[in-house]
């Protein structure tokens, strides 16, 4: 029955739209959070990995890129070559001295002295040898042989340092593997947390949605007449405000001798008549009007109305439709069926114009009642 009637209360979509936007924003923030979390992880890992790689693999050309021990050993071997060369002995000594000095400078490093037992004696040997070479007190072959111990020590250091570097690289490799695991598990954890947060968010959203829907339904019910399913007085005010600046027609309908009807048939039948009339009015206006029950036996219809002629036409249609329906009224003083008194007015919707329009329609209605009921009147001076 009520399905035929155009709902008087606008089922505004606003709360749903807001809910959807909220969900969209939450999705976006969740995505950003996940993305940021992963970025932080990646940057952190890069910051950790890059300097380590640089330390172990990018030493070429730097001061310690080639082992100091290696460079020192090479100079000592060059010194031996100079000493065994065919050049004059003095020149050979000078050239050897230069190489041994360079070798000494590269060898005399705290870390070698501390970590390798052979370093200290070798440096002392080199020191003594340089003194003897400066004083030309040593045979070249002897000098060459005295360099073997430092060379052996340097070779030992080289091998040991290579081992240490190898171990360091292994450690680095292991650390990298562990960090990769951390990265993988952390990413997984962030992903799972993201899913859990999303699920919690969705659940919360559903609850909010439900609560909003419930509130909205309560609001709708508060705007609706429970007996007839059409709007009430509050809905009428709200709808007028929602149609600001539109040319509207307001039709007030009052059932003639409704008290006598109730007395004759009882209130349940009276309620039935109210529902039947609501349906009839809706059908008469081809669902173009929004209907309201203002209380008791009084109805109102709000419709788009470009001119007074249209309004009059609607009123005529209503009275005609009622006569055709021919609802029985055993207690009608004039021995008629159910009759209506209808008053109308036209106005441009606004906060202040409605009160005047209502008053004008009401005056028209009372003019009908004063004239014997069962008719319609329209107040034309808006």
């Amino acid at each position, binding site marked *: 029955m009520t399905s035929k009637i155009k709902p008087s209360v606008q089922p505004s979509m606003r709360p749903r739209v807001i809910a959807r936007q909220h969900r969209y924003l939450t999705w976006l923030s969740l995505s950003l959070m996940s993305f940021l979390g992963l970025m932080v992880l990646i940057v952190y890992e890069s910051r950790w990995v890059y300097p380590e790689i640089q*330390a172990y693999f990018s*030493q070429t*050309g*730097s*001061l*310690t*890129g080639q082992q100091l021990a290696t*460079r020192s050993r090479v*100079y000592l071997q060059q010194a031996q070559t100079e000493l065994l060369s065919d050049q004059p002995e003095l020149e050979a*000594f*000078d050239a050897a*001295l*230069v190489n041994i*000095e*360079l070798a*000494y*400078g*590269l060898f*005399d*490093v*705290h*870390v070698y*002295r*501390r970590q390798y037992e052979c370093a200290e004696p070798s440096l002392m040997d080199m020191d003594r040898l340089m003194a003897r070479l*400066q*004083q*030309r007190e040593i045979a070249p072959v002897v000098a060459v042989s005295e360099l073997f111990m430092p060379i052996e020590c340097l070779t030992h250091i080289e091998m040991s340092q290579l081992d240490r570097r190898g171990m360091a690289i292994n450690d680095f490799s292991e650390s990298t593997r562990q960090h990769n695991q951390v990265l993988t598990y952390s990413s997984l954890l962030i992903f799972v947390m993201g899913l859990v947060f999303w699920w919690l968010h969705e659940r919360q959203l559903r609850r909010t949605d439900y609560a909003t829907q419930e509130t909205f339904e309560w609001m709708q019910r508060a705007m609706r007449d429970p007996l007839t399913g059409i709007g009430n007085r509050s809905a009428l005010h709200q709808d007028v405000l929602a149609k600001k600046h539109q040319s509207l027609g307001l039709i007030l309908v009052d059932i003639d001798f409704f008290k006598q009807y109730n007395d004759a048939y009882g209130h349940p039948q009276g309620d039935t008549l109210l529902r039947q009339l609501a349906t009839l009015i809706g059908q008469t206006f081809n669902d173009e009007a929004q209907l309201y029950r203002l209380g008791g036996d009084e109805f109102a219809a709000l419709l788009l109305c470009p001119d007074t002629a249209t309004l009059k036409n609607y009123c005529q249609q209503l009275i005609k439709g009622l006569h055709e329906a021919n609802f029985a009224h055993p207690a009608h003083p004039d021995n008629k069926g159910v009759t209506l008194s209808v008053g109308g007015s036209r106005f441009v919707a606004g906060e202040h114009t409605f009160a005047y329009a209502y008053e004008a329609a009401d005056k028209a209605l009372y003019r009908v009642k004063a004239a014997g009921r069962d008719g319609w009147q329209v107040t034309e001076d808006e």
Partner: protein
Amino acid sequence: MNAVALHRRPWVGARDRLACVLIFVGITLPTAAFAQALNMINGDVTQKIALSDLRAISDTTFTLYDPYQGRDVEMQGVAFRSFLIDHFGAVPPALHFTAWDDYEVTLEGWDDPNWYLITLEDGDPLTIRTRGPARLVERDYGDRDVENLRDFNDWIWMIRSIEAKW
């Protein structure tokens, strides 16, 4: 006689002095000839700075833990930034270093008052054996790990020449 005996002929004294000089030169020549100047190269112009002059202008003394020697060392040198400005007119964007051990490297970022070109350690001139005759150090190396010598790669040793790279 005594007078004669006591009076040595002039050429004898000269010969002795010459012998002494020759012995001294013979002993010190390898080192002396090896590293006596620092070459400052700016384009086509090469300026040789005698190490004695470099030591003479080494007006700053400070004590620093040298990670290569594993001990506190009193270093004496000149602020490298000022030194560059004095010789190149400005701090070049990059410098190419050549060391006496033929090590070569080009590094940037020298507009930094933290770097010092040192020529003396504990009051003694730096030699090749002590990674001289000139060496670059950072006066303040912050909280870098002194056990990790890789962190001190920029401390150029045995500097033979400095070439401005504009």
